[in-house]
């Protein structure tokens, strides 16, 4: 039985057709589908795919001008490296959205818009193998691109991508979803449709992402009007830290040496080499960081007993 390469297979070694994440340097990763005869070109030169096949996941490989690591794709790595066709949802938001949807294997989730498929992948991987993701976008180039990716990533069987304006035409499925995610400019228009798409007997969750508070205000009113309960809006602001070697000196040292960071070794009064005690500390870095992506408004639609 020939198995389609998949994000959800956990073989020890890399096969042809696998999607690999080539880790070049911190913050620079390139996803590639491994195919004999092809060559990857990047910062550290060229790397022939032949050299990747058969290697263990996580292996360091030498390219012509440096080395890279070949990583197994994960939802987070895909988010960090995917080809961007739109502004995307990053890992912190994706993670929180999955949690707010109560996402788990077996769930049926509706999503709009598809965008670049960052969250779509996160959802598909979470609801697989028994659940299903219906992702909707008004732009056909986006849905077809994500379908292509789902195929390459072995997620076709758990996903359906639909070209559809959910604000006017509603979702592809009705009375069947466990969760709905909205990232549309006028969520209040889509909310009545979201209520319809949710399973009446099981009830379900709704999460809406909006950058602006005015959208949130209207969305909250629309959710209440559609019968949602436990409506809450949260804001998530991650802060990246960097670990640095701390320069801590006495007033005497400052007076004699200034505040320049000391060289690796310094000499004491007797001329002996003294190892500087290096203390590590975390600083906020980069100094300028994202301080807002969007507000997440979430709510529950209770089951309606027959």
């Amino acid at each position: 039985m020939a198995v389609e390469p998949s994000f959800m297979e956990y073989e020890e070694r890399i096969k042809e057709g696998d999607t690999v994440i080539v880790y070049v340097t911190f913050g620079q990763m390139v996803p590639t589908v491994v195919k004999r005869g092809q060559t990857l070109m990047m910062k550290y030169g060229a790397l022939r795919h032949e050299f990747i096949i058969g290697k263990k996941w996580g292996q360091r490989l030498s390219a012509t001008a440096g080395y890279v690591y070949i990583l197994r794709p994960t939802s987070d790595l895909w988010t960090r490296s995917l080809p961007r066709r739109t502004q995307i949802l990053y890992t912190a938001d994706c993670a929180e959205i999955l949690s707010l949807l109560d996402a788990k294997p077996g769930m049926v989730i509706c999503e709009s818009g598809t965008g670049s498929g960052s969250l779509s992948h996160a959802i598909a991987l979470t609801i697989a193998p028994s659940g299903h993701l219906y992702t909707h976008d008004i732009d056909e180039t986006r849905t077809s691109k994500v379908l292509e990716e789902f195929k390459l990533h072995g997620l076709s069987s758990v996903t359906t991508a639909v070209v559809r304006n959910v604000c006017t035409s509603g979702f592809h499925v009705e009375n069947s979803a466990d969760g709905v995610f909205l990232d549309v400019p006028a969520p209040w228009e889509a909310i009545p449709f979201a209520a319809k798409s949710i399973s009446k007997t099981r009830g379900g969750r709704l999460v809406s992402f909006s950058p602006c508070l005015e959208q949130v205000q209207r969305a909250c009113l629309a959710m209440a009007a559609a019968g949602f309960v436990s409506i809450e809006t949260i804001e998530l602001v991650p802060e990246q830290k960097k670990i640095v070697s701390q320069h801590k000196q006495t007033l005497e040292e400052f007076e004699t040496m200034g505040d320049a960071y000391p060289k690796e070794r310094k000499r004491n009064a007797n001329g002996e080499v003294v190892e500087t005690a290096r203390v590590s500390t975390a600083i906020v870095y980069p100094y300028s960081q994202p301080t807002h992506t969007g507000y997440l408004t979430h709510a529950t639609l209770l089951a309606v007993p027959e």
Partner: protein
Amino acid sequence: MEPDAVPSTASVIRSGEYLIVQKPDGEQSRVVRFTPKQKILIEKLKFSADSVFGKPYGLFEVSNNQCTPMSVDRLIEELHQQEAPVATSLGDSETTTSEVTDSIDPRLVIAPSALKLEPEQKRQKLEMDAVLEMKKQGISGQELVAKLVQGSASFQTRTVFSQSKYIKRKAKKHNDRVLILRPTIRLLAKAYYLKDPDRLAMLRADQLALMLQMAGVHHGKNIIVFEQTLGLITSAVMERLGGKGACVHIHRGAVAQSIPCVHSMNYSESTLSTFLPVRIKCLLAGSQLPYDTNRRPVNEEDGEDNENDEADKKNIDKLEDQDQEALSRRNDRLDREKQGLDIISEERAHSLIIGSRTVDPISILELMFPKLAPSSSIVIYSPHQNVLISAYEWLSKRPAINLMLSDQMCRVMQVLPDRTHPLMAQYVAGGHVLTGIKVIDQ
């Protein structure tokens, strides 16, 4: 009761289930195991557990200690009533938790010294006796609010907003509604965090969500978990595995203890099959050890104080040597432990998750890092940043890449017409997350 409505058995409340109980606008959230004849208490509201068995999860109205299901349609209907263009002239002050943030608008607080009751407040005060009387008679909160609103002489036309706010405030005060929900990881995380952040190592729901995503916990994965978070991380991992893969749970003593979050999820056998508890002493010894008979778990006082946690492992221990069933339980435990140890020794683990409260993550990394499959994710949570700085340094000297230390703020917004702002006071305790990926450095 209610024989006309026949909900499908999959979606009705059964006796013995763990459930989440909360008031719709309440601040508390409780995890309670519902047993026959039990009285459930939530924020001064009391009802009998018996009255909800056989009914669907959802919203109930409590009257005379009995729960009656409320339909979504009725909620929507009420909302429409609220939107009628009548309103009140009452002030804007809102009910909040702490004394300091007692009023949403600092300018509307009345000086205690100069506390002259406004006419409206006087009227409300007089109404109180009547309210208490009605309550005694078993009138529901909803009806009570309706009566109060009718009776309020100052309920005059102003704006839709302030009128709905008026009703909301009233509703909050007198409401006898309760949400009874099937536990989810999110609801459990919130309930335990609000109850005692310390015991949960201050792990917030949003940080747990981040950990699961960074660890890439999905169907079929093998995940090693060491945690001191009441089983919350373990339970979340098990749910995401969905019956395939492994959650190797490293625990203290002879049996996994203090994991109420695993018990209260009412998991199916399939989901439970991925739970592979492994004793710390086996890891330290480097091999599976037999069970000492007649030995109690090392630290007796360490049991979970959750009043609803019936899974008392100590009792199980006592019975073990006499009981055939106990023997098979022990065999099952040994079998699961063997599976877990095999995953470790055969380097088949795809992620290591550490949710530490007191144990130095390095102490776990020393044992587990060498055993992880290459390309696996390492996710470490600690309430203390300095602990993660040390772990970062440890990892940076090993074949580990993409090391990231982060922190996040999670704030709830109050979204009300003309009153939008972040909540005035919230639980903010939390921790830090360190992540990385193990590689083969040639």
